[in-house]
């Protein structure tokens, strides 16, 4: 299947919100991380990240990262691009304590507070995606 970061961002975000409303903290938390990663990768493409023309995945190894490491990668693309000026993220990285391997963890390890902090992170990415669509930076 080909990569579509924009669509993936949307479905992860929408499903995460659904689960969050149902107090399913663990999987909501997991999906907020994926939503942030996909959203930022879509923006990174707009700011110059090269992707494989066939699969649509990042070509540079350093860019193949998850939510906990994508923040810094995003910043390096954003700060080097003219259009990136208006696309800053909060300086504090909200996904430092998020890890893809947590999908194997026990539900009880996830709380509302944890999910909420990652929700805020994903939300700031979601706002940037909406803004980029309105500005025509991503179509």
């Amino acid at each position, binding site marked *: 299947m080909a990569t579509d970061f924009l669509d993936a961002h949307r479905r992860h975000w929408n499903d995460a919100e659904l689960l969050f409303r149902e107090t399913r903290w663990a999987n909501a938390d997991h999906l907020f991380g994926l939503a942030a990663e996909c959203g930022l990768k879509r923006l990174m493409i707009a700011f110059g990240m090269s992707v494989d023309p066939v699969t649509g995945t990042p070509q540079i190894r350093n860019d193949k990262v998850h939510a906990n490491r994508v923040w810094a990668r995003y910043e390096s693309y954003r700060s080097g691009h003219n259009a990136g*000026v*208006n696309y*800053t993220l909060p300086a504090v990285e909200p996904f430092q304590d998020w890890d893809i391997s947590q999908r194997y963890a026990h539900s009880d390890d996830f709380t509302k507070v944890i999910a909420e902090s990652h929700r805020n992170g994903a939300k700031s990415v979601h*706002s940037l995606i*909406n803004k980029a669509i*309105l*500005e*025509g*930076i991503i*179509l």
Partner: protein
Amino acid sequence: MTTFDQILPSIHEVLIVQKEHLHKLGPIIINRDLNGRVRLVLEEKLRDQSETAKLTAAIARAMSDALGPHGFPVDRMVLFESSFEMVKQGALNFQLEGFDDVTVIDRMATETDWSNITPIATETPRIVFFSIKGGVGRSTASSVAAWSLAQAGKRVMVLDLDLESPGISSSLLPDEKRPVYGITDWLVEDLVDNGAAVFNDMVASSDLSRDGEIYVVPAHGRDPGEYIAKLGRVWMPKINEQGLRQPWSSRLNRLLFDLEKSWKPDVILVDSRAGIDEVASACITDLGAKGVLLFSIDGEQTWSGYSILFRHWHRTGVVHEIRERLQLVGAMIPEVGATEYFGELCERSWTTFAEELYDEIPAGELSDAYFNFDQNDETAPHFPWTIRWNRGFSALQSIHSRFQHLDEDELTAIFGPFLRGVHDIVGFGAEHL
């Protein structure tokens, strides 16, 4: 094929067909993106509303067809947003003519948009010198105005904001008196919170004034340094740690207030860039100028340039905020045939102002209540303050030495009406001129 100028008329045509049903959709945003492609933005609550779905689809279809390359395929023509305030943030917006509840959001690649009119600064009066064309003696006139105000005992600050073609400082300062830094340096340092490092070394006092003071703030310092690399960063907005964004024109405004606080001038003269340019926009609309002097020579380029600007102010609904600050200056009035030349200049100026800036007086009403002037009304903004062409003042480089042997009578003969006007704006009285 639809081109840019047909976007708004096409949308108008599409919406007029549905005018009686539009209220069902609530407020509507027409979003014109950075590439000039348009989408319809509706409130989030309409996303799944079946009663309005048909209407939305019909408009989306018609708009997509009408706009062609300036629209989107019909399935991507409409966006639903929960916060219209967020959508409007940071972009020029104006009402679509004829529709109370339809707002056009216009996103541009430039930082300034000529429509964000800052109220007149309440502290020190600021006067902006602008021209559509370069080479009409605008910078020379600002130097002369600075000199004349200083002769009247005033503390005058002159800013060279013609960043792409700096020059005014050389007419007011000999080389050895130039400060180390200029406005460009401050704008670049400010981005990294280092403005203080250059602030105290970017102003020099001119030796030309006897009774007052002329403080010159040049575009760059004695050594321009990596000027092009700095100029390319001047326009950067500054974003603080909380994510608050300060556009470059606000940064410039902050610099002006800081300079005012430190040097306490009685008046600030800003030499702006010529043409419909980013810096000029900031100078004219964003700095809270009390007077905006539009330097003009009679010619097609001048009038079509001013028409474009005036029409933009009209369309974006800011005419009332800006028009009372404008004043036309007739530059380089020729020696031969001066009267005929002036007559022509005045007529063209009046036509241009009347078309877009002056109110139309409804039949049977008194003109006093309206912003409207006769062609020959000497107090009107279109009525040119004149500056006569003069060989001695036509080259900016020689002005510094020229000033040192200045004959005030000669100056009045050349710049009289213009200088009286400038003194008037700042309320200093011009009886001596």
